[in-house]
């Protein structure tokens, strides 16, 4: 499978905190990679660096083999990297339709720049079509304010937004946090659909069961470093857990027996 995204020796510090030390990883076309690690391991920092929330201190990023520099979120989006951040990615006071196209609004009279009028008809139609495609149009009206939606509905909106721009790489930072059972299944179904559509997915989660349900590979981070990389088929729950905590749980279990 073709390589889509490659990170080489990324480094990022916040003052004296070295949140990212020499992180390298590769993401291939049509695969779901789970990024695991304890709180504070540096997962969010890693994906924020890829999505242009802040620039990296050092290291190289390659998209489809070409070296790129990602200094802004706009640059990441233009490279086909869509991110659903852990802290909500939607503006609650805007309608669903306006959120779906935030930053990429369809406009008339394009030459007016930021003063160009929104193409409201197109905005609404495209939003409705998208909601229909992801199967939530029955419940949701494209003109409804996001502040009126449940957490799961908001997550679905954020995910459909990432899908709509046919991103090469979709990054989800703990997308199932605070979701109900049914909503969680909806999110996992999205992840599978995205893989089926040929997107690469980087999924950050604390739920190891989800990893075994949807992921092809796992990458484990600890204290800003990538400490393990395995295909899901070659591992099991216990060894993944010990990789995350750094303790050899399976050895402990054996000794206990």
């Amino acid at each position, binding site marked *: 499978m073709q390589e889509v995204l490659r990170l080489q020796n990324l480094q990022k510090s916040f003052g004296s905190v070295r949140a990212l030390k020499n992180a390298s990883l590769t993401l291939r076309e049509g695969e779901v990679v789970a990024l695991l690690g304890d709180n504070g391991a540096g997962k969010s920092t890693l994906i924020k660096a890829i*999505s242009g*929330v802040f620039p990296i201190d050092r290291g190289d990023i390659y998209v489809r083999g070409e070296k790129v520099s990602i200094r*802004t*979120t*706009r640059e990441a*989006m233009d490279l086909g990297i869509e*991110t659903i*951040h852990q*802290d*909500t*990615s*939607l*503006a*609650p*006071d*805007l309608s669903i339709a*306006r*959120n779906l196209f*935030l*930053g*990429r*609004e369809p*406009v008339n009279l394009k030459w*007016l720049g*930021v*003063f*160009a*009028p*929104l193409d*409201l008809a197109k905005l609404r139609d495209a939003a409705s079509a998208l909601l229909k495609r992801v199967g939530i149009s029955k419940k949701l009206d494209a003109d409804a304010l996001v502040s*009126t939606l449940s957490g799961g509905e908001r997550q679905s909106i954020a995910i459909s937004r990432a899908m709509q721009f046919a991103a090469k790489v979709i990054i989800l930072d703990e997308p199932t946090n605070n979701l109900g059972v049914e909503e969680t299944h909806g999110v996992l179904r999205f992840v599978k659909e995205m893989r089926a559509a040929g997107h690469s997915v980087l999924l950050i989660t604390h739920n190891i069961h989800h990893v075994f349900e949807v992921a092809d590979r796992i990458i484990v981070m600890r204290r800003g470093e990538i400490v393990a990389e395995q295909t899901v088929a070659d591992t099991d729950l216990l060894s993944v857990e010990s990789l995350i905590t750094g303790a050899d749980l399976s050895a402990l279990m054996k000794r206990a027996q």
Partner: protein
Amino acid sequence: MRSPQFSSFVILIVLLVVFAVADGNFLSPLNISNMMAFLPELGIIALGMTLLLTAGEFDLSVGAVFGLAPVVVMLLVQNAGVDIGVALLAGLLLCIAIGAINGVIVTKIGISSFLVTLSMLLIVRGAALYITQGFPLKSWDQPGFFVTLLAGSFNVGAFRFYTSLWWFIGLSLFAVYVLRYAKLGNWISAIGSNRNAAVARGVPADAVKVWLFILTSVLAGLAGMISAFRISAASPVAGTGYELEVIAMVVVGGTALTGGRGTILGTIVGALMLRAIRNGIVLVGVPGLAYNIFVGVIILAMLILHALLQKSAARSW
């Protein structure tokens, strides 16, 4: 119909009726002309403040800029012999600089706009007092292009209006368009609603905020010039307290102080309301020193109403 600007509008109508019934002169051509002369001066600043508040920031230095801009322009004309057009251009650049400094400190250094613009209020007001030594200047009163442009007047029947009313109407239409229908308005609301979400979608939040600070400053300076030309005087203390009056207009109209939800129509209603209240309570004989009690009570009542409406709206979903 539970929208805040609609409830404000209803209250405005009620107030107008009450004042009209209480005093026959309230709706006289002279009194309406009077109200319409003052309205644009605060209203124009309120338009900028609405956009700024919607983006999640506000500006306490507008009253001081209202005072400083004309004072600087008049000093250049009277003491330095500069051409009035050039002096006005210098005043414009000064307002742009003040807004840009506010905006850059707020966005790049990350100090709250309350603190930054409060300091700026002191600096700007202090500068106006210092360069005039506290004395008001006679303003430009020779008729000409700029006076006509900013403070010309015309009669419609028994009414006498100022060109500033056209400025207010034109800028209002522009602001409605921007906030409701333009791409920029979508960005402004998104930034105020959830800045990180907007930034994550590639919206240049800091640049938008800096431009809005500049716009607000420029509008405050424009309003100051209009006022100075109208009364033929530029006073270093002109506009004192306007910042709070303007913010009151904006929030009474239904714009959220916390950002994300702004309405220009609401602000126009709010501006009319505060103007009508200030004018009406004089006519109905409230003692001068008690004005602010009434104004404060009415503002508070409006805000409570908005909050209750919002609560009940949230519950019905």
